[in-house]
């Protein structure tokens, strides 16, 4: 089926975006990238470690995937904007997964700072993909600010708690004029499938794959979930009903009870 994912004017063949965090070994990351079929992977921006043995960028380039830098770890709009500018210089991309965190324990987004950062980065020419709460009003404000997509959480980063509020996610999907990418909360295949069934355009997944017992097998499983959920969304599911609706006809039902035999 030809069903490309159009994101900021670019066609992606996969609706699964892979976060690179949490993979125990670089080889596992490369194998998982292959298993997901993804074309877009996130990276974080950190100080150079002179003792680092591998160049992540070289590994990702060898995999043939596009890099989406994030601003993870930033708690203010100012830090997020500077991190995005550093990423643009380092990786020659104006795409950024914008994260502005408001709470260390839950890693939930700081809505006012997020909106300020989004506005500044859009004005600076960035393609802004913001990690946001599942608040439909904030999602609309981010879209109005010029973001190229909205990336609501299903539940907190790395929690694996799935989609806690499918109703809010449905509202975001209904109103959005930009792609909706479920970001954070996926624990297993069914969570990814549900996101796509609810109408998300794509799923971003890191920990569920990288911290699975067998990351490469889970990469295959979550890919299948995304693809299955997408197919189901396009197919159009039946409405939920309170009572049964027979799937076999009642007409032509044979009379199988023993005939009453009159006694002589």
């Amino acid at each position, binding site marked *: 089926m030809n069903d490309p994912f159009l994101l900021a004017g670019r066609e992606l063949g996969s609706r699964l975006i892979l976060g*690179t965090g949490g993979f125990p070994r670089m080889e596992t990351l490369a194998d998982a990238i292959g298993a997901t079929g993804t074309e877009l992977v996130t990276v*974080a921006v950190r100080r*150079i470690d002179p003792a680092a043995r591998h160049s992540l960028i070289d590994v990702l380039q060898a995999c043939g995937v596009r890099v989406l830098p*994030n601003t993870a770890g930033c708690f203010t709009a100012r830090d997020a904007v*500077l991190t995005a500018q550093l*990423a643009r*210089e380092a990786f020659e991309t104006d795409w950024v997964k914008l994260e502005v965190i408001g709470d260390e324990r839950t890693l939930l987004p700081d809505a006012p700072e997020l909106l300020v950062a989004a506005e500044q980065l859009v004005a600076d020419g960035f393609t802004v993909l913001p990690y946001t709460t599942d608040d439909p009003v904030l999602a609309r404000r981010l879209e109005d600010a010029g973001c190229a997509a909205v990336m609501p959480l299903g539940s907190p980063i790395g929690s694996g708690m799935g989609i806690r509020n499918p109703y809010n996610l449905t509202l975001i999907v209904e109103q959005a004029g930009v792609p909706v990418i479920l970001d954070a909360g996926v624990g297993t295949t069914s969570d990814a499938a549900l996101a796509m069934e609810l109408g998300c355009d794509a799923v971003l997944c890191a920990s569920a794959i990288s911290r699975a017992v067998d990351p490469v097998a889970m990469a295959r499983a979550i890919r299948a979930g995304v693809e299955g959920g997408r197919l189901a969304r396009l197919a159009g599911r039946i409405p939920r009903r309170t009572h049964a609706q027979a799937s076999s006809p009642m007409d032509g039902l044979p009379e199988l009870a023993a005939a009453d035999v009159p006694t002589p």
Partner: protein
Amino acid sequence: MIRVNGRDVADRDGATIADLLADLGVEADARGVAVAVDGEVIPQGEWPAFTVSAGSRVEAVTAVQGG
């Protein structure tokens, strides 16, 4: 004194960004590296000539697994 990635570096006042990166084992034409001095991103093309004065804060970053 210049502060590079959170560490004070002695006797490097007036060094270029390229010099400071070399101290970290990074070549001036390295891919996937960016530098900010006092909160301003300095493009890679300026690293050989850009001198860092005493009291400045240099942040040199690259990609790590995340997200």
